[in-house]
């Protein structure tokens, strides 16, 4: 005589949940904003961390390039109004790129570029124009010859190149070839430098401190996010206790009500997380642009692209999971309520 209530298929719950979001649009937007705010905070922190790493890397590269340039000018004397020539064996590392930039800005009359492996000169913002030459013309009248790039040490006949130089100075940013070029009149300079044990230790300690700071930032941001999202979800469920009571009186199953809220929270979580992630990244980018300028920020972001993508994916995933998890408890409390109690509830 009494039968089991029909289990409504998922698409009915989906329809009712979406209808609920649509009709309660204003309230849904507030909940979505709550989620978005939490995720925006998390993402701003994470993106800030990545940009900070990028900026710190850039700072380190610039300092290293400045050191190399200083090292070079100790041997060559001031390069102001003189000519320097670069022999490039392959792709440049960030230090070498910055060194080229700083060389071009050092007041040279001319900067020559000889690409042994076809590597084009890096884009530099200002300074002496590049003149691309062949190896035969690389040394003519130059005060310094700098060999850089990731390729193998150049296996070339050095004498004609060195012969035309004003001062026979060959500087290497990487390993010096086994048989050094030139003769007794040639100065060979190695610009690379192995960090000392003390420096290595300090760098390692700084790395550990940075890792601890990062962990702390992530934990705090997650805590803020969790609280923000659970609060938003809790409010959106509790304020509907009465409606839930009514639905139960009309024959809704607990599982249906639970499903309704889980679908709703998944949707709200997805939209809020994506929006929050974009807003957080944008905020961090704007803040860093304000502090370090657009060029450096863009460069740092570009260098940290993979970790930025990873952080964004993690923030969106965290937002969605947190939204659903935060809704599970209030939704199951609400769905288990005796209808009479849910109706009496004045929340």
């Amino acid at each position, binding site marked *: *005589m*009494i*039968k*089991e*209530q*029909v289990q*409504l298929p998922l698409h*009915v719950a989906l329809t*009712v949940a979406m*209808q*609920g979001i649509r*009709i*309660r649009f204003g309230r849904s937007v507030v909940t979505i904003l709550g989620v978005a705010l939490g995720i925006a905070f998390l993402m701003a922190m994470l993106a800030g961390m990545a940009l900070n790493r990028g900026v710190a890397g850039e700072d380190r590269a610039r300092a290293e390039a400045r050191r190399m340039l200083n090292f070079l000018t100790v041997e060559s004397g001031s390069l102001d109004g003189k000519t320097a020539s670069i022999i490039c064996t392959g792709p440049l590392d960030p230090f070498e790129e910055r060194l080229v930039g700083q060389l071009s800005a050092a007041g040279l009359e001319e900067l020559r570029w000889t690409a042994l492996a076809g590597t084009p000169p890096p884009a530099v913002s200002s300074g002496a124009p590049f003149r691309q030459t062949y190896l035969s013309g690389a040394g003519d009248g130059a005060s310094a010859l700098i060999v850089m790039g990731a390729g193998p040490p150049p296996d070339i006949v050095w004498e004609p190149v060195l012969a035309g130089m004003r001062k026979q100075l060959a500087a290497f940013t990487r390993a010096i070839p086994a048989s050094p070029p030139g003769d007794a009149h040639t100065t060979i300079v190695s610009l690379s430098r192995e960090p000392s044990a003390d420096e290595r230790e300090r760098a390692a300690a700084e790395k550990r401190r940075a890792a601890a700071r990062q962990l702390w930032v992530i934990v705090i941001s997650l805590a803020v996010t969790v609280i923000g999202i659970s609060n938003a979800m809790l409010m959106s469920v509790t304020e509907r206790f*009465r*409606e839930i*009571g*009514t*639905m*139960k*009186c*009309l*024959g*809704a*199953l*607990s599982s*249906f009500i639970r499903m309704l809220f889980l679908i709703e929270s998944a949707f709200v979580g997805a939209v809020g997380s994506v929006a929050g992630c974009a807003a957080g990244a944008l905020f961090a980018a704007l803040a860093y642009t304000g502090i370090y300028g657009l060029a450096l920020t863009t460069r740092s972001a570009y260098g940290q692209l993979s970790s930025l993508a990873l952080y964004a994916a993690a923030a969106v995933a965290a937002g969605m999971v947190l939204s659903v998890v935060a809704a599970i408890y209030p939704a199951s409390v609400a769905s288990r309520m*005796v*209808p*009479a*109690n849910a*109706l009496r509830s004045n929340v």
Partner: protein
Amino acid sequence: MALSREHHAALFECAPGGERPCVIHAVDVKKIYGAGENQTFALRGATLDVYKGEYLSIMGPSGSGKSTLFNMIGALQKPTDGRVYIDQVDIAHLDHNELAWLRCRKIGYVFQTFNLIQVMTCLENVMLPMSFAGMETDAAREKAVTILKLVGLGHRALHKPAELSGGQQQRCAIARALANSPEIILADEPTANLDQRTGQEMIDLLSHLNKTLNVTVISATHDLKMLQSSHRILWIEDGRIVKSAKPEELDFSSSEFH
């Protein structure tokens, strides 16, 4: 479980084959809220039968246990002690699935505060119990329109509750209660939030439905107008049923009613 249901059915005064079929049979129903020193006796043992097709009014001051009795016989809450049989089935033996089925199809609820889902139109409110019963949307819409016309709200089907007067909202709630053609309509002070004239209209509507659809109406009320339309009146006081009467036995001019 099937055995015990039959066993209980055999105990009925108004068991099948009796003079009048009985839709609700409550035996010594008690409800206690809280525990220890905070215990509150909402019902101290209420026994009643409700017959099929009857219009029963339950009178009582607020706090008398009226709403609690309502929740018990409407399967919205389980009693602390005692038995409630709806259609000869002890609701204590039903699991939540079966209770949901019962609430969906056997009983239609009408509340003092209407309890319409504010974000849905009248039509969607009436369709909701039908979709819980697994009805196809098109069929449900057709039936909902018919019921809304029956309660005189056909022209307001696409309005939301907030756009309707109190009387229209209660009409919509009554339409929703009728959605799955229940045997029983439980109305908890349906006229309390309405003015005199609109209240009278609701009573007329319930009375009309009772006569034409032969649906059993159980209504809790303070409202004297409701008593005159009912077949039988129960008085409840301090958690006990203290009096039972038919309207023709009452003297509405006596001081008791003023």
